[in-house]
């Protein structure tokens, strides 16, 4: 038989499915990784369509499942989806802001077979949390729900997205997580995709802030160990401050797939912002999408890589880094991730960090992630395209990030 697709032969089955149930969210975090144009995708898959996605992914070998969004709790069929997923044999994780969670719902989800709930916190105090997420009540509710999750016997992972406005609170944040009884805390500096890319200048910490925060985390690790308290702390530095790129998603189309609210299937939840077309599970089977689609085969293996990466010993380790980051920073999704110190564009990051250290910004400069802003940005993008076409300038793939920056 003729092998039409040499890449598919080496392709291993997916292990991870991220089900983004909805882009709707009661919060407006300015570092959200959802696409800027999220309002464009309003037709959410219905319950039956999600059941089909779950069955297909499980049959292909996926075992880890994340229910995410937006805020997945907005979906009234969440319990039904959890129940189906659990019966299929998935390990079910709910990634939530905690808004919309009640003690009854915690129990209902446990009954449906949910394995794990991860709640995200914005800040250590309600005032900053409100300034960041746009909700006055959310913080108190999160704390109450974290306690309810713990009381229901779930393993509890708390997640805090760090940035220049809350990173100096890291000691208070860890203390709060300790008090809430967390088993693990992810102190993840935000990475600049989606809304976080739009807001990156107002979000990027300084090097000094990062160093202090990491040292404080290390002090806490010692304190916790001395007390015999088993709460692991994971500290993630922003890619922009690294010298070697991450093996993004374990490699494009290697272990991970995201199904977006409208059924688009993506190799990661940020990929939608790349200048590519992604297949939809309403038109094509997941099996075909994973093994046969141009989108999933596009960056598999090493053939697509720039020479710099092809000749590098780390090519099978970091897979050339993150495609979305390469695109957002250089306008070329085939480029070496500029996070790599060997990238000719690595200097971009150095200048950004240096330049940013001199900027003072407060939370008021953050553009909130909401439907109004999303529509506004899309209008600006269209206007920008019209302008560049009338002046006969070649439309550059850089347009989107550049244009958004100008506002």
């Amino acid at each position, binding site marked *: 038989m003729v092998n039409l697709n040499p890449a598919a032969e080496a392709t291993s089955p997916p292990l991870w499915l991220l089900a983004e149930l909805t882009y709707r969210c009661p919060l407006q975090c300015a570092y959200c990784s959802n696409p800027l144009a999220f309002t464009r995708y309003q037709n959410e898959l219905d319950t039956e369509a999600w059941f089909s996605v779950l069955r297909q992914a499980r049959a292909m070998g996926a075992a880890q499942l994340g229910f995410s969004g937006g805020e997945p709790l907005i979906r009234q069929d969440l319990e039904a989806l959890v129940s189906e997923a659990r019966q299929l044999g998935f*390990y079910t*994780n709910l990634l939530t802001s905690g808004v919309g969670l009640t003690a009854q719902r915690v129990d209902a989800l446990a009954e449906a077979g949910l394995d*794990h709930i991860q709640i995200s916190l914005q800040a250590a105090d309600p005032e900053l949390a409100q300034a960041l997420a746009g909700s006055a009540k959310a913080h108190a509710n999160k704390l109450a729900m974290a306690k309810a999750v713990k009381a229901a016997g779930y393993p509890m992972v708390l997640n805090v997205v760090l940035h220049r406005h809350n990173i100096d609170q890291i000691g208070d944040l860890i203390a709060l997580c300790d008090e809430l009884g967390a088993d693990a805390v992810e102190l993840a500096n935000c990475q600049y995709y989606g809304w976080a890319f739009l807001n990156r200048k107002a979000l990027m910490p300084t090097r000094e802030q990062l160093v202090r925060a990491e040292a404080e985390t290390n002090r806490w690790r010692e304190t916790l160990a001395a007390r*015999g308290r088993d709460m692991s702390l994971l500290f993630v530095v922003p890619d922009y401050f690294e010298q070697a790129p991450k093996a993004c998603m374990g490699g494009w189309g290697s272990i991970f797939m995201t199904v977006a609210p409208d059924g688009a299937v993506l190799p990661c939840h940020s990929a939608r912002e790349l200048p590519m077309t992604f297949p939809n599970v309403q038109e094509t089977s997941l099996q075909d999408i994973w093994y046969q689609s141009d989108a999933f085969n596009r960056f598999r293996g090493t053939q697509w890589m720039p020479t710099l990466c092809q000749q590098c010993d780390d090519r099978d380790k970091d897979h050339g880094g993150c495609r979305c980051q390469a695109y957002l920073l250089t306008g070329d999704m085939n480029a070496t991730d500029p996070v790599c110190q060997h990238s000719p564009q690595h200097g971009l990051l150095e200048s950004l960090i240096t330049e940013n250290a001199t900027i003072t910004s407060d939370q008021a400069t953050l553009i909130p992630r909401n439907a109004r802003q999303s529509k506004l940005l899309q209008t600006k993008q269209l206007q920008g395209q019209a302008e560049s076409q009338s002046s006969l300038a070649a439309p550059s793939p850089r347009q989107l990030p550049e244009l958004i920056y100008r506002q």
Partner: protein
Amino acid sequence: MSQQLAMSHHDIYQLRRGWRLQWEAIQGCHVILYPEGMVKLSATAGAILEQVDGHQTIGDITAILQQRYPGAETLADDVVQFIDEARSNGWLAVKEVHCG
């Protein structure tokens, strides 16, 4: 998890709450699943962990596996070594530990 005691053959372990052992037909191996993560297990590790059920002691587990794989000479050591490793990975919870 800082003070790791030496294990005794009378110790009883179970999987930590929220941690799950599962056979994955597509991968052809056992995996251990936990919050946002999974580890593929070797055939030996899978066979041992399958017996870690909160009832059987380490001694029981060794005896059962010895019966099932009579040719495996280092089995007693393998069991202790793997359970120790699983314990330090945070996969297991102590049901009953006997000192001495």
